[in-house]
């Protein structure tokens, strides 16, 4: 059985991807449990910060998703840690300050429009953490996108936000029961309080990931944004 800390739950279409941190001797590294027949989970009842045990099998995963492990038995929760502690472990795992160091390869700009991508065979991993100089989230033509600046000063634009909790928060903010002008109110929140709440949080941290290869390209996305949204923030706008 492998014990690991759940650090990422991302929403990919109708399913969820899960990433955790595993300690091996002194090293903390990311692993991605996947079901035997696919890459994602249709139902995942656990939360970030949960420490779970699970039977995992290593297999020769296709680059760059070298963190994949096949889960052969269900997850058993043993305990959980607070958000700030989760981030303290993430800071000890894969981390980078500049664009080429994120996935150990060159990152290319989409010449046709927006977005950034890596070549599957060049990328050494598919997940990496980093601190940010600044971060902005926006609802752009009904799509949730993030723009951020790395410690190196490099700016990454239009990253799809796949963090489950943030996506759920945005969905809740736009729920019809919340009354009129929901989109405008959400935009106002994202343009004002959101920024302060995120950037002033001592455990602000993000993890960037690469999509599975699509037409031979792996696209960058914002997998995780700490701090996680709090339900009471919905009362503020």
């Amino acid at each position: 059985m492998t014990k690991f800390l759940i650090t990422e739950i991302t929403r990919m279409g109708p399913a969820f991807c899960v990433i955790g941190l595993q300690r091996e001797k002194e090293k903390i590294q990311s692993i991605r449990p996947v079901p035997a027949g696919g890459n994602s989970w249709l139902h995942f009842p656990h939360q970030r910060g949960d420490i779970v045990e699970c039977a995992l099998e290593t297999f020769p995963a296709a680059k760059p998703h070298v963190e994949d492990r096949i889960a052969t038995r269900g997850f058993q929760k043993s305990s959980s840690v607070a958000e700030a502690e989760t981030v303290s472990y993430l800071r000890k795992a894969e981390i980078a300050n500049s664009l080429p160091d994120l996935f150990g390869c060159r990152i290319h700009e989409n010449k046709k429009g927006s977005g950034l991508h890596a070549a599957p065979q060049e990328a050494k991993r598919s997940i990496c953490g980093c601190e940010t100089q600044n971060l902005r989230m926006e609802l752009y033509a009904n799509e949730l996108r993030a723009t951020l600046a790395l410690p190196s000063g490099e700016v990454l634009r239009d990253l799809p936000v796949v963090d489950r909790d943030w996506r759920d928060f945005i969905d809740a903010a736009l729920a019809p029961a919340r009354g009129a002008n929901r989109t405008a109110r959400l935009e106002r929140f994202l343009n004002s309080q959101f920024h302060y709440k995120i950037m002033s949080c001592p455990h602000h941290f993000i993890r960037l990931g690469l999509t599975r290869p699509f037409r031979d390209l792996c696209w960058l996305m914002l997998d995780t944004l700490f701090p996680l949204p709090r339900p009471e923030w919905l009362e503020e706008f």
Partner: protein
Amino acid sequence: MRQPAISRLDAKHRRLLEDCLRREAGSSVSIPGDDVDLIEAGILDSMGWVSFLRAVETACGAADLGSHLNERSASFAALLSALRDPPSIPAAPARSELLHDFAPYSNHVVIAASSSTFGSRVIPSEEVDRAFGMPVGKLRARAGIESLAYVGQGEDALTLGAKAAQEALRAAACGAQQLDWIVATSETHHDYPSLSAQLHSRLLLRENCGALDVGGACLGLLNALAVAQSLIGSGQAHTILVVTADVHSRTLTPGRVVGEFGGLFGDGASAFLLRGANDAGSKESYTLGEFIFGCAGQYAAAIQVSDEKDGGLAVQFDGEALSRAAITRMEKVIASVELRSGIPRGSVGGFATHQPNPRLVALLAKQCGVSPSTFPSVARFSGNLGSSTCGAALHEILRNASKVPRGERRTIFLASLGPGLLFGGGLLIPDEIRK
């Protein structure tokens, strides 16, 4: 008469959408009907949809197209409607169109929000006297400076400027993506990428938001405001952030310059969010009035700063001559603003001026026959902040004005100087007076 023009524009936009879609989805893609949702029909996925919109933005010069498409379908019809709707898209006409349609200053420009910040270390002026090897108490006694604001570890022009900018954006609840331009000025930042470029990245502005650096040293804020006013007035922009940031404590250091000069300066930043009056929304705003500018070359030798071969700084500083010139010229600028506006200086709510040092501010107030309390105390506690002095003073006056009942707010005069001797002045009029 208007219909054919709209049809021509629609045809142009449609061609552009089709080209961008083919680039995104492949040249073999068949162009869908106007009402077809491109995502639901599987023509584009969500990544491709955003990528396609960004390409459209770049091609037609539209800013922040996506925010106008929230709650609308991912269809050509929705896009064409957003592109057709003039208020939703900042005017970004082709150059030839601009020459025909140029309508200067058709739109009043207001300050929608402001902010200022200072270096986090507050140093008593006596400590600065000692550092420069001057008699202790000289800065306080001769210049009236009680303390200086110096940057701390981890602070620089970029961090100060970004902090001021974020606060101004937050105060106006304005998203960084709404900016059409950032105009920056600094008398101490001489690196590349320039300050505006660094701020552009740090603030995560839209890629097609322009970034411009304006010179003028202590006059920089007025220059930047005038540039922003022109860009908005001519219809090329809706929303502009003007930022000043000056960090003297790392340039004008003991051993490099004399204390009588270097000891006067501190570190700070300011930011102002400018919008066309039609877009401003707030009723509490001030409108930018007419500016005047010039250069009194006869005083050029009073202050000159240049780099030396060995990395040193050559400073020519005739304090006496500069003080006299500063007082005379700023009084003249204030008189000119007064004459042009017809607003007597005695009725002005505040003077956001350059403050070489507090003694000269007191002298200027006396010379102008107005109360010294109408000049915010910036230099007394933070030192001369270069282009940010005027910014910090203006922010302080605007902050105080926001507490005054509407209808009782008064006009603000601006006046500043820069080496050369550059000079400039202007005024800010409360929204209710302009109307």
